[in-house]
């Protein structure tokens, strides 16, 4: 890349100050996230003294794990040049199926608490992953655009979840499930946080160190080039949506443990929030570009904003306004960044 001074050619502007140059470099290298983070810190600290306390920030992390897990799945879909609008449905369906299976097993064998928990988790995660498989088949085999496929599946899955429960929460799970996976701690760290850390680490290894991970980037970077390089692009796409469904399903079970009921109405905001987390974390909507670390930070940032707004006593209805605006701003910033990069090209 050439020196930023090239930017000034033509216009009779004074040479850029070192500070602006540094900001530009940071913007190009890291995207919009650091700037948003700084802004959020300043604003929310001004609103509430509590905001920057260790306890509150720990809270933010604990509340963000659900979004982190879903966003990592969403990132895979975005990497291949698509997206998944059905992650919310997957969370809901997993919750309902998992809770129902768990409650039924417990009712049949009241002594085997851990068997019930295992059966419930397997059933829930299987149900959610199956939705991902359906998405994968639609996108990879039948060439349905990810937009239509996941939008349609979102409606199908949500309908099934509501039909199964009649819209009523599912009770009857063993209390141990919530105690361990919802509120439990290991070595002082909340269990959901541990799960999220493990999943993030595995996701990092997957995209950076495995052949399949590289295929995600290749399919999103240029699907035709990938095909010509001997990559099975359809199978790669299929695995993408399956994995995305699996991760959303894991999140669904963790949320069920936290709520201690199976709910068909959770996860509705997940598609928007997970896409926002990825875009704020500089994952390209055009596919082929994105990093695990940045996505985790993006999801944490959204958790931070939600927490800050709660502390500042902003109504939850208005919070969705802020989130939608953030998503659009992040996309605009991404385009500005692309233009900056293009203008710096030799």
């Amino acid at each position: 890349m050439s020196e930023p001074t090239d930017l000034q050619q033509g216009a009779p502007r004074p040479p850029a100050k070192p500070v602006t140059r540094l900001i530009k470099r940071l913007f190009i290298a890291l995207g919009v996230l650091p700037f948003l983070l700084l802004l959020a810190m300043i604003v929310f600290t001004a609103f509430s003294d509590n905001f920057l306390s260790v306890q509150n920030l720990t809270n933010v992390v604990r509340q963000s794990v659900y979004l982190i897990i879903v966003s990592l799945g969403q990132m895979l879909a975005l990497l291949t040049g698509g997206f998944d609008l059905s992650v919310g449905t997957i969370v809901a369906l997993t919750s309902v199926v998992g809770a129902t299976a768990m409650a039924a097993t417990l009712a049949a064998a009241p002594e085997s608490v851990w068997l019930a928990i295992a059966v419930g988790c397997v059933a829930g995660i299987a149900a959610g992953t199956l939705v991902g498989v359906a998405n994968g088949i639609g996108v990879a085999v039948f060439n349905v655009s990810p937009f239509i496929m996941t939008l349609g599946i979102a409606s199908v899955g949500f309908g099934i979840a509501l039909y199964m429960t009649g819209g009523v929460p599912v009770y009857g799970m063993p209390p141990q499930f919530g105690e361990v996976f919802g509120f439990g701690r290991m070595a002082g760290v909340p269990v959901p946080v541990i799960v999220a850390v493990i999943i993030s680490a595995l996701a990092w290894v997957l995209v950076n160190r495995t052949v399949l991970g590289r295929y995600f980037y290749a399919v999103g970077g240029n699907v035709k080039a990938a095909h010509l390089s001997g990559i099975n692009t359809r199978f790669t796409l299929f695995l993408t949506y399956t994995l995305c469904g699996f991760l959303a399903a894991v999140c669904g079970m963790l949320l069920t443990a936290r709520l201690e009921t199976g709910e068909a109405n959770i996860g509705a905001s997940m598609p928007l929030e997970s896409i926002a987390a990825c875009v704020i974390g500089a994952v390209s909507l055009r596919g082929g570009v994105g990093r695990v670390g940045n996505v985790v930070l993006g999801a944490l940032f959204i958790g931070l904003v939600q927490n800050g707004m709660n502390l500042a006593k902003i109504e939850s209805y208005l919070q969705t306004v802020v989130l939608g605006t953030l998503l659009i701003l992040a996309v605009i910033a991404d385009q500005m960044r692309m233009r900056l990069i293009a203008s710096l090209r030799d």
Partner: protein
Amino acid sequence: MVKEYPGVLALDRVDFQLRAGEVHVLFGENGAGKSTLISLLAGAQEPSSGEILVRGVTVKLGSVHRARGLGISAVFQEFSLVPQLTVEENLFLGAEPRKRGFLDRQAMRREAKAILLRLGFALDPAETIQHLTRAQRQMVEIAKAFRTQPSVLILDEPTASLTERETEQLFALIHAATSQGVGVVYITHRMAEIRRIGNRVTVLRDGHVIATVDAKTTSEDRLVALMTGRVISEIYPTIRHEPGELLLKVEGLTSVTQSVRGATIEVRAGEVVGIAGLVGSGKSEIARACFGLEEVASGRVWLRGEEVTGLRPGAMLRKGFFYLPADRREEGLMMLRSCRENMVLPALREAPIRRGAFLSVSQEQALAQSLTRRINLQPARPERDVGHFSGGNQQKVLLAKSLSRPVQVFAFDEPTTGVDVATRAAIYRFIGELCEAGAGVLLISSDLPEVLHLSHRLYVMYRGHIRAELSGADITEQNVLGYFFERAAA
């Protein structure tokens, strides 16, 4: 009429003049600045400095529309037609005849018919563009330029997809236009056309005007020397021809889309086999069908005696056949990823880079480093995004992909599109080395001098058929061009 402007983006202080009633040929390699120059003249782009004068008056074109208003009409190689609309709707796009605020369809039909009749093009004005052949689209594009009675006409390789008869028709039109005082800027790669219709030739190289010479008296060798800045023998290496084992055999191959019909070709080890033909003649589809990118309707393909008909690209790679696509941006490279990731992509499936499900980072680095040196990537920074490199270096990265794994037969589809002379010479040397090392090379190219000079044997394709096979001294421009076009007898 004079136009000039010094100091332009991809052009450096170019002065260019067009007189009324002349055909002024622009001649130069891909990337020499011809396209930039005409897009400035046509108003599609604006010069960063310098000016354009029409009849001695400085004008600011701003848009293609305004340029057209000033009498400058252009026919570009990339069609500016809307595929879903009809011929007449495209002809009048942006200047639709109106009656009381509504479209006047009858007037449009009438005028469209009149234009097509005057030009002698057998086209139905109500036909939708997407149902037309490439040559027919070219005619619509030309008709569009002639619609407004231009005083300056810009034609960018207009005959590239026309038949001989249509070409004659176009030349007659150009002649009629120039005799009425229209100035024509004409881009072509064909020597014969320069002599046939040109008055003056301006040779461009690397954004500079090298010379403006008389079209009738300047020899071909002189023009090529001006265009490339060197003598022919410096660009094209002599490749040893030692045909060995039969590597690729294609028999009676017909694709589902009929882009290839009953084609039979052979490629032996240690030879460069060229395929020439017009756009749409099926010359790249034949390699694509072998590589599993086009569906095969009938016919068979063998690789080293083993039948491989209809295998997918992944399987073909493992058998040792590598197809490098013509369009690196569209099909070849991931522009937003690094050179390293691009170069090693075909090698990821197997050891040593693959270790179980994992990638060996060190093996990948080592391969990327050696490929970077082998292709002489400039600057030698494989971690940079491919999109940040020049066209020539991007092309080198594309070539490097074929070196990332063992390959017996290489199919290069337009391997030198949009690269400078130095890279071009390097790519030719590269092809020569592969061949002399015992590989079979299939060279598919629209660049006639390229296939003429490099091929040991040459197939000429026409409308999906193999029309001729030439070898050795028979490979000449006249021979090849003779098979390019429709003949009365054929």
